[in-house]
């Protein structure tokens, strides 16, 4: 299970895009859904990309928590859910890091979005695919501008996560 997960971590995004393209293509097994070249297809692809990273890093975060946390919660009468919550609370910094890393992977992703989305203007053009297109068209200043927007977005989300973790609790 962990090996599969770790392989999924290193999966090239273009390959994921290809597989989903194959599944969603009109003649593919899920073709009837008509999802190919829609923004929903991009969401599906990005979720599949982010899930293994989020899962693997969260598992590592939880495993790294002091075993006394679980025992302490249990001996104080906590049930399964409350105990899990107590463990997650103690691991919240590493769990947040898992979210940040998964978010980073999705944010910077081009290949899958391009293949399953098709880079259709006003429909499935994402910031990264737009940058790719602008660069290949020689519109360098537009590409840089969009890149800055993307960076600002990444920064904002990271700052928000940092704030959510609560300040002063290093």
């Amino acid at each position, binding site marked *: 299970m962990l090996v599969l997960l770790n392989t999924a971590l290193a999966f090239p995004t273009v390959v994921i895009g290809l597989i989903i393209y194959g599944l969603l293509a009109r003649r593919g097994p899920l073709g009837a859904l008509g999802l190919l070249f829609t923004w929903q297809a991009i969401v599906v692809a990005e979720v599949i990309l982010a899930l293994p990273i989020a899962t693997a890093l969260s598992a590592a975060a939880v495993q790294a928590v*002091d075993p*006394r*946390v679980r*025992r*302490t*919660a*249990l*001996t*104080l*009468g*906590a*049930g399964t859910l*409350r105990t899990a919550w*107590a463990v997650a*609370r*103690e691991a919240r910094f590493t769990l947040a890091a898992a979210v940040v890393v998964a978010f980073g992977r999705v944010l910077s992703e081009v290949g899958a979005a391009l293949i399953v989305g098709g880079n259709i203007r006003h429909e499935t053009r994402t910031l990264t695919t737009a940058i790719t297109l602008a660069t290949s068209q020689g519109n360098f200043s537009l590409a840089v501008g969009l890149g800055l927007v993307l960076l600002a977005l990444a920064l904002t989300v990271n700052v928000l996560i940092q704030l959510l973790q609560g300040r002063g*609790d290093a």
Partner: protein
Amino acid sequence: MATLEVAGLRQIYGGRTVLSLETLAVEPGARLALVGPNGAGKSTLLRLLAFLESPAAGTISLEGHPVAGGAARRAARRRVTLVEQRPYLFRGTVAGNVAFGLRAAGLRDPAVEQRVRAALEKLQLQALALRDARQLSEGEIQRVAVARALATEPVALLLDEPASSADRAAQQAMFSALAEEQSRRPLTVVFASHMLEDAYRWADRLLALHQGLPSPVTPENLFRVDLPGGATMQRVAVGPLRIDVVSDRMGPATLAIAPDEIVLSAAPLQSSARNVFRGRIVRLAEHGAEMRVTIDAGIELVAIITRRSFDEMGLAVGGEVYASFKSVAVKVF
């Protein structure tokens, strides 16, 4: 009815039996001390009694009902609480930690706040209520952990080496809080300690464990005696020996002689030690740079000496030695 009762209990880790205890019953309001060296099975027994792990064989009953299966153990954990040797405090405030078990029990805010305050007061921790739990001293952590455990009003409180990390004052606060609690209700207390002095000062019963088994001999020079009284300097009969002790007590008592207070010599010492006995070495055990020498002097005495002295004196099993110790080295409990 016993608060906790054990029958045919066995625990196995990695194919090795780490604990084997046929029977044990701890009555309401009892103070049972588990004593024995590290690795004797004390912590294992406490975790089993806390229903944090399930035994390889045997049963543990809580207030007369055998506890078996996940659901029963979960229910039992609401009534028995373990304070670990190095207690873990959750992130957040001291008050937040003490509230944990109360919230787990389904209590809501005004009640939780009130119980938290009461529990903190019992351990004189009111001033620390809003402090960050991560910024406490070891002694404070210990007290917070005990307050957190007492807040849930368990029928049995289990403590693993409560005195090992805490400073003297923290220990005092903890033991008096437990005594206070016991004067209010029949709280059962079981604690593990490798310090016999603590065990004897506070417990009303003692279970000695050695390599996972109850040990019939009390560890390390403990003797039940009857003090004659009448003077501060007393001569007490221990088996065939007469031991000089300093105590103004009278009647039944326990004598403890720390093994490192006993001096071994080849000939009787001309010294201030009032107790000098001739004996024969019956057992030897090596512990790193120390040797544990058991002498039969009519009663068995254990002395700890350095490996170096042992070699220089040329001691061996069967050899004759003199054991000397001062009367003030004999602790009376």
